């Protein structure tokens, strides 16, 4: 089974269908891959300036909106200076 259990209580990166990237601690999930994130922050990418982090707090994301959930390697993540990263925002899902 490709369950989400290994990600519980870990810092994760969530990519949504609209292209948003949200980091947070996975507090829980269910059968439909609805996900609860605590201490979550949106990472807003742009070409003009570095990555902006916007605190979002406690978030419940519907499963059908989720594209990808990645486990963040915290050491690697902390070593990255987000203000130096310039990139297009991820595109939204197009069917």
């Amino acid at each position: 089974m490709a369950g989400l259990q290994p990600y519980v209580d870990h810092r994760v990166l969530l990519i949504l269908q609209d292209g948003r990237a949200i980091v947070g601690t996975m507090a829980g999930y269910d059968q439909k891959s609805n996900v609860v994130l605590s201490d979550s922050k949106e990472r807003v990418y742009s070409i003009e300036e570095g990555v902006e982090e916007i605190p979002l707090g406690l978030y419940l994301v519907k499963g059908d909106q989720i594209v990808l959930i990645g486990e963040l390697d915290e050491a690697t993540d902390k070593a990255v200076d987000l203000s130096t990263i310039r990139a297009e925002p991820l595109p939204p899902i197009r069917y």
Partner: protein
Amino acid sequence: MLIFSVFKTLTDQRVTVELKNDLSITGTLKSVDQFLNIRLDNIKVLDEARHPHMMAVKNCFIRGSVVRYVQLPAEHVDTQLLEDATRREAAAQNKR
């Protein structure tokens, strides 16, 4: 269901998953479920310079519904067996 079985035989192989947001991710297939949700280990994003978003991500869960293609390692897919299994499944379905 058949494709689910095919994916299960490919666990621990390197595959490339192209998503419907045009992101391509290569990784070791760790598991699949009946929705064709996929778990990949040791991932690498194609064109990392353009997509630095996943820099600190080593393994991930991909929702089956957003997968466009999965590139399979040809040497690990027995296409003859797959054709036979497909015919058998189609025959079983026609009987009902």
